[in-house]
């Protein structure tokens, strides 16, 4: 009898905890997604994007969300099954909040074909879903019983591979909203070759300033063994490479590279690589 009631109260506690997390997740989804929902290029992308790219974009987002759940997320996850459940909860929140906002803004209505509606919503849902997961670390301050912020605990456990993953997420978060805009290639066209090279150098220096100051895992103990240059190679250069790849991926998905020459593609990649590099380097701070 007593056992029964205690398990019931434990269950309702779990439910309440989840529902509170869910409300936070919706807030995070909206905060993250509103900038791109209010970006004109994203509206037409919903139907002009080739189907295979949209499918890749949705499918790639799932392992990203699972990984994100490892570090932040709805529940204090300890295993892969929990993370997968979390990822789908995040996707559901992302999809529902983008759909609601797009209908509210009149960007989606039933005079449109089903493909257009699904495409427009899906392309926003990925960003919103990342926001939903992220809200758990940022807005929540979800503290465990010992009063430690959960994400802090997770960060302590992060190893080099995890660090690179966090950089990837950071790069995606900051590069996502400028990626579909026309401004990216307009800036690339306006920049001379020398300015482009300067931008690469500035991006790297800026990243290194973050890497050096924002206490990456084991920095203190490693500083003795690893020189500044090795830190630069391990985190800054690798992080910048990640930022450029993320930049290239997002530009390709959003169709900004179609019909461009290789040199133009590289220039646009470097331009979007700037916010991506910022996001990667600041991932420790923002996630």
């Amino acid at each position, binding site marked *: 009898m007593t056992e029964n009631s205690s398990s019931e109260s434990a*269950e309702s506690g779990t439910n309440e905890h989840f529902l509170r997390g869910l409300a936070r997740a919706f807030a995070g989804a909206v905060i993250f997604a509103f900038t791109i929902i209010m970006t004109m290029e994203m509206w*037409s992308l919903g*139907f002009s994007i080739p189907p295979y790219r949209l499918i890749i974009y949705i499918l790639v987002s799932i392992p990203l969300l699972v990984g994100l759940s490892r570090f932040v997320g709805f*529940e204090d996850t300890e295993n892969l099954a929990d993370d997968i459940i979390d990822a789908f909860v995040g996707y*559901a929140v992302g*999809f529902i909040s983008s759909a609601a906002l797009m209908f509210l803004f009149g960007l989606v209505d039933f005079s449109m*074909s089903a493909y*257009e509606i699904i495409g427009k*919503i899906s392309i926003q849902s990925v960003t919103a879903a990342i926001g939903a997961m992220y809200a758990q670390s940022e807005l929540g301050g979800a503290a465990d019983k010992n009063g430690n912020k959960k994400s802090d605990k997770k960060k302590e456990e992060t*190893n080099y591979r995890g660090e690179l993953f966090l950089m990837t997420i950071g790069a995606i978060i900051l590069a996502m909203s400028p990626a579909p805009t026309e401004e990216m290639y307009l800036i690339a066209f306006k920049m001379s070759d020398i300015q482009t090279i300067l931008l690469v150098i500035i991006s790297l220096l800026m990243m290194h300033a973050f890497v050096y100051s924002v206490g990456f895992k084991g920095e203190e103990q490693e500083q003795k063994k690893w020189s500044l240059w090795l830190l630069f190679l391990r985190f800054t250069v690798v992080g910048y490479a990640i930022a450029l790849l993320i930049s290239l991926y997002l530009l390709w998905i959003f169709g900004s590279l179609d019909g461009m020459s290789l040199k133009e593609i590289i220039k646009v990649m470097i331009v979007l690589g700037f916010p991506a590099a910022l996001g990667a380097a600041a991932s420790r701070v923002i996630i």
Partner: protein
Amino acid sequence: MSENKESDNENKPENEQENKSLRERTSIYEWIVAFIGLALVLFSVGYVAYDGLTSKNTPPNLIVNVTSVKRLAIGYLVQFKVKNEGEQTAANVVIKGKLSKNEREIETKTTTVDYVASNSEHTGGLFFTENPEENKLEINAVGYENP
């Protein structure tokens, strides 16, 4: 590289939740929302794939119909609806309305519609000074560009 891993798997904090099964520590609502998420992913990917595979990718086929003609304080407003029956999206669609009397053109007005996606509709209007109902009105899409 090996020194990074040393402390990762050791001092995991004692967690109450680890003692519960997945079913116990996952709220019923969480299961429901997670399944909605799974369903949305499968549905979106499935629909997009189905549409992509079955689409014949026919070029834009723009059909313009007059929906209403209104008399204004000065002139007339002809409202139209443009529907794209092709599979490709048409951007910057130019709509041209022509009034003619006895085979002679008396007034021509154009407007541009941002885009009309496949199997979707867009509405707009053209302003005329002559009465479209007393003259012959032809309205159609003149051209478009690929988005």
